[in-house]
């Protein structure tokens, strides 16, 4: 059984605020949503990163009552809000009687509660460990809370494949629907950024920093890029069988086309590798046939400003397109940062014709890569959008979203 699968709703929360409209505005503006992160804990290197794309304090009560929010870690809160927002956006009146799968990705899980729990254990002693922190710090807490919150009794899967996770979640959720195991799938990603996690990413030189007279900013594909903008939040997308969506009068945003994933064994545990040629062949094989290269007219790239990650992304795309011109490439992580799943919502918005501005912090191309983010000029709505996600550690995932 293989059914056509469509995205019918988007929910998103992050540095851009809450809702697809806020995200679309931010992506159109192209300005990084950076704010200063608390460095007083002493985790950062002295000359290290100062900014992160943090979710502001928002009134989430329309989707999550305060009493319920207090019982959840931030990744669970983000995820449940995004899921309810996506269901609302999809216009599904009730999920009763539907088999609903939840597939969420997270890179780091509930970091704040994990930190608190470990500190309790190490400083106050194991008996001081609070059960609430423990149950909320397991990696699948967010997916479970979404399931409990919306009564989703289908498969409940948490994928932890770093930066490839959101695209892998989209693919796995789409298969749940395509192969008939679910009527609806809520797919997405959630993450939080804490001072400790940010400090560690800084010490690994993963995040951007002020250097050589340049301000601290994520500059995907830029010759002077030196790291990403760490972000947080959650995005969720509602997937349904196209036939069922049309039957209930929904207006689908995009159809999920082909998906693929691969691995670059030249990567290290904490960085990207140099296997772009091999990954490019895999990507080209995915695009061969029903979604040929020529039909891809937008790339929503997972490039983040990472030195090696962007180089690998460029090499992969170049290898897949093998000498042909790439379609316009947009880089939402320059605005909303890495982590939190905004890339998924950005992909769905791109497929439904949203405009992406030029990343304002961008300065000059990297002569090695010769890819520049799209200049922000208006473009026709794309027929097919390629969504990419290459992870530190070696995993890679791609998905095609088709205009309807």
């Amino acid at each position, binding site marked *: 059984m*293989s059914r056509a*699968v469509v995205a019918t709703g988007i929910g998103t929360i992050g540095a851009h605020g809450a809702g697809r409209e806020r995200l679309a505005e931010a992506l159109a503006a192209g300005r990084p949503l950076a704010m200063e992160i608390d460095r007083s804990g*002493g*985790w950062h290197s002295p000359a290290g990163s100062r900014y992160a794309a943090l979710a502001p304090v928002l009134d989430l009560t329309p989707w999550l009552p305060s009493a319920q929010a207090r019982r959840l870690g931030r990744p669970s809160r983000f995820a449940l809000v995004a899921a309810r927002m996506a269901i609302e956006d999809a216009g599904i009146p009730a999920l009763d009687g539907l088999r609903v799968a939840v597939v969420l990705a997270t*890179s*780091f*899980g509930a970091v704040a509660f*994990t*930190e608190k*729990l*470990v500190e309790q*254990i*190490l*400083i106050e*002693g*194991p008996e001081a*460990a609070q059960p609430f922190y*423990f*149950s*909320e710090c397991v*990696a*699948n807490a967010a997916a*479970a*809370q979404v*399931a*409990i919150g919306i*009564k*989703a*009794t*289908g*498969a*409940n*899967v*948490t994928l*932890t*494949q*770093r930066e490839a996770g959101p695209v892998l979640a989209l693919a*796995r959720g*789409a*298969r749940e629907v*395509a*192969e008939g*195991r679910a009527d609806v799938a809520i797919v997405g990603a959630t993450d939080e950024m804490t001072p400790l996690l940010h400090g560690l990413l800084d*010490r690994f030189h993963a995040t951007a920093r002020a250097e050589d007279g340049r301000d601290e900013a994520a500059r995907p594909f830029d010759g002077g890029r030196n790291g990403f903008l760490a972000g947080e939040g959650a995005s969720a997308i509602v997937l349904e069988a196209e036939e069922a969506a049309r039957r209930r009068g929904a207006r689908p945003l995009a*159809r*999920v*086309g*082909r998906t693929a*994933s*691969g*691995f670059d*064994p030249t990567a290290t*545990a*904490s960085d990207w590798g140099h296997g772009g040629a*091999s990954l490019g062949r895999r990507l080209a094989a995915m695009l061969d*046939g*029903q979604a040929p290269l020529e039909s891809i007219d937008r790339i929503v790239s997972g490039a983040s400003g990472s030195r090696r990650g962007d180089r690998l992304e460029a090499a992969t795309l170049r290898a897949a397109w093998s000498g042909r011109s790439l379609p316009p490439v947009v880089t939402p992580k320059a605005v909303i940062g890495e982590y939190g799943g905004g890339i998924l919502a950005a992909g769905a918005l791109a497929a439904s014709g949203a405009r992406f501005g030029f990343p304002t912090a961008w300065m000059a191309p990297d002569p090695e890569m010769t890819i520049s983010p799209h200049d922000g000029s208006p473009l026709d709505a794309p027929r097919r959008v390629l969504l990419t996600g290459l992870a530190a*550690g*070696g*995993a890679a995932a791609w998905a095609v979203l088709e205009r309807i």
Partner: protein
Amino acid sequence: MPGADPGPLPTDIVITGLGAVTPFGWGVGPLWEGLRRGATAIGPFSRFDASRHRTHLAAEVPERPSPDRLGPRVSLADRLAVASAREALGHADLDLRRCPERAGVFFGSSNGGMLESERFLEAALRDGRRRARTSAIVSQQLNGPGDAVARALRVEGPVETVSSACTSGAMAIGGALRALRRGEIDVALAGGADSLCQITYAGFNALRSVDEAACRPFRADRAGLSLGEGAAVLVLETGAAARARGARPIAVLAGEASACDAHHMTAPAPDGAGAAEAIRMALADAGRTADDVDFVNAHGTGTPLNDAAEAAALHAVFGPRTGSIPVTSTKALIGHLLGSAGAIEALATVLCLVRRELHPMPAAGTLDPAIGLDLVIASPRPLRRSRCALSTNLAFGGSNAALVFTSAGRA
């Protein structure tokens, strides 16, 4: 994928290799010997100082007999994973270098390298935050074990880590089954790895879910789980690929499914509805019925609520036949391996299926009449019929997973 023309797809997915590192030792051989013996490996341990914890027992993997040459910046969970994968691949007599892009890794892990992260944080608290060496946490990530296997074996196909608590390993194996059936790959290394760490040890103790003695699944006086560590890997291939290279299938992975209770974060639905749904769907996926199942390797943690819910699920699926289906729990012998539990129990299920003998649980504890299961206790049970077996897992957050294995003769 939707819209794709899949062509003729493989229908039979066979197991051609097994690898494991468990508290019984490094390798499948020591595991099977330990399982047959039926004496628990749960006891005092030294992975970390447990003296300040409420309980003091766990099932710990013994020292590795020889170095693994993976270098110093690798977590224990990664090491267990890579050792298991190498053993499984050797057992399958398979060389992935011939076609690395047709191979995938599907792994479950709940903690990744949390043990090493705790050591980093301990050093940070002791020596100062800027002095603590970040090299200690390089492979702390949840995707660490699966990625480590893929890097060590130069895999270029899909790599997917599931972190759905205690169902992670089973769901990872299920994901591999789907990828093979879709024809995305010809071979998968599917399994899981987790090491003991303080956060889970203290966390389960905080929930009062850990037994002060070794766990006693399904017994009347059961008082909680026992934690363990280890890894297991199954080599899965399409039947066609295995036959083409002359490999002899060990067994068939016939079906998988998962379902969620959507009930409570830490307690299963008392009626076991989600677990029952997962079992029914897995049997349907395998083209089998409840009557076909010859034995069950149950999740069987030893917590009062889990065992009651799981027993309810088995009764719901098997009806009056429930009391005559032999049931065992591998956790009684090696503890709860969390993200790796589904993988090691799948492997134990395959061993029992193939060797036509169900491993026992220790004799400790009195039978719980409310459970109503035919538990295999004290000594191995020869299986008159051993053609179809079920392995179940229930997890935090209400996630449930079931795998169905059949003997290779019926592939």
